């Protein structure tokens, strides 16, 4: 398997709903994302963008076919192996930040690393560096309710990076932000690709943001077509 493939879908079938009236989202879907590449996927609501991202994140399994992350097939992996894969290889950013209200900024970022087995001090050091990277070093001791929407999303981005994943999966990361904050988050994500060599699969409704990535695609009828 080529190491230049960060993410690959091979003949993926995925349906939604019960057996009576299933909605077919993907039918023999084949697609791959190269390492260091940034791809934006746009599409109408219900087209399957989030499902595509969840399949890539191994949060959902395909009905048939295979998803490979960093060249590693995921179909045969048990819960423990999938957890390890998600911890080490994937960084997830959601439309909603999902920050934990009981924890400070730096704790929100550090805990996934600590949970992954990195010693506590090192986890906190990593977290402080990333909080600084997203421009929130002065807010590291604050709680999520003390942050603006844009700041929370930047913390979520720092959290996604704490285990240094090769592939970042972002689902509408700027969907809830005003223009200024959205721009800041976009810059951060795109810098990760250009400066850090990470791969980015981005789902967005924002055509401007999509156009700033290396490749913008539209998800239509279970197929990715050029925008």
């Amino acid at each position, binding site marked *: 398997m080529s190491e230049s493939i960060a993410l690959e879908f091979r003949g993926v079938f995925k349906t939604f709903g019960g057996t009576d009236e299933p909605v077919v989202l993907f039918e023999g879907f084949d697609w791959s994302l190269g390492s260091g590449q940034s791809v934006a996927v746009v599409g109408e609501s219900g087209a399957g963008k989030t499902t595509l991202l969840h399949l890539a994140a191994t*949060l959902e399994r395909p009905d048939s076919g295979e998803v490979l992350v960093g060249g590693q097939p995921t179909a045969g992996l048990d819960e423990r192996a999938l957890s390890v894969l998600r911890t080490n290889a994937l960084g997830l950013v959601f439309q909603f930040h999902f920050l934990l209200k009981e924890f400070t900024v730096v704790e929100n970022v550090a805990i996934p690393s600590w949970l992954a087995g990195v010693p506590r001090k090192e986890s906190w050091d990593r977290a402080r560096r990333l909080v600084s990277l997203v421009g929130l070093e002065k807010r590291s001791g604050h709680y999520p309710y003390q942050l603006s929407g844009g700041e929370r999303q930047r913390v979520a981005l720092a959290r996604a990076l704490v285990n240094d994943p090769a592939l970042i999966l972002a689902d509408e990361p700027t969907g809830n932000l005003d223009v200024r904050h959205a721009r800041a988050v976009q810059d951060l994500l795109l810098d990760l690709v250009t400066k850090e060599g990470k791969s980015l699969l981005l789902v967005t409704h924002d055509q401007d943001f999509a156009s700033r990535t290396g490749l913008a695609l539209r998800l239509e009828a279970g197929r990715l077509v050029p925008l």
Partner: protein
Amino acid sequence: MTAGPLLFLAGRYLRSRRKHRGVGAPLLSLLGLAVGVLTLNAVLAVMNGFQLTFIESLLELSSSHLRWTPGDGQPSADATLLAAQPGVRAVVPTTEGQTLITAVGARRGAVLRGFPANALALDRGLASHLGLNPGFIGSRGLPAPGEVLLGGELARGLGVIPGDHVQLTALSGQAFSLLKPHLVDMTVKGTFSTGYYEIDAGWILANLDDTREAFAGPSDFFYAVKLDNGNADRVLADRLAAVIGRPRPEFSTWRDYNTAFFGALRTEKAVMMVLVGLIFFVVGVNIYFGQKRAVAEHREDLALWAAVGARPRRLRLIFALEGLIVGMGAAALGTILGLAASWGFGSLNLLSSEAFYLPALPARVLPHEVVLVALACIASSTGAAWLASAGVTRIPVAEVLRSE
């Protein structure tokens, strides 16, 4: 994944819930369990105090750990051999019978125990539990021939004091229908108190020579054997019978002749433990539903942790750890308060000694019971939390994240 992050998360969730809900469910659960531990420890200490004090006194004063009844009803030189055996604390020749005591027109039935004059020197346990009251005639100690010691309540009931004369009724004859009573004059040497009304109001101690001569038949004579470890009674009965070459049935143990009574005490204690222990069940149910609610409240958090790589089975430990923290806190608090209460019961004179015939409320703490109660508390709390957290493994991660 090590326990460090899980403990950190559990502690933070617990603190957060307390902060946001004031005196929250965890604190109430902790207090409820602590009250249970406190109550169980205090109740058990007092029950142990009553039971063990009574049992020990009964064994030391009355029944002894073993009784050897020689088949011929006569004193035996083998007694010296028995006393020299390891595990044997004392061997005292004794008689036990009943009599009628008459003094100044008053008459009472009583148990007549015959001891040699040096029995208190032979048997320190007897000496420590037999309180000799002031006002003896002659030297303080067990009676010489012609003398008796009366239980303090018996003496008061008869209206006699040391130095007075009493008459004991003895029966003689070859068959029941031919029994003839005769009166034996005795001098009251002194009185004793044991703390047990039945003994103090119904016992007469006399010299063994007197009782064997006038009051006791061969079957009333036995050797009272005290052991270092009362629980080794059956093993030692077997061994001692073998050592002196006597039939095993000549030996009986305190379990044989007190089975019903001690069994009732054990049952009483077990039932009390179950009844008070129900508080653990009630609080456990409270914790169960509290933790279920906590899992539901943290659904998004848990889905996120799972999404970023934490295994749901491990995440479940966060909520079980909360139960463990609550249980350990309650066990520590309840144990401290329970021990303090037990000490207080033993130290404070809460009951009228005249009304209850008790100098003080007895309390005896048994370490293994304290540990058992603490473990039960921790187990109920942790178990309830663990069961309640089963939902963590069933959270549909993608669905939760999508719905947000």
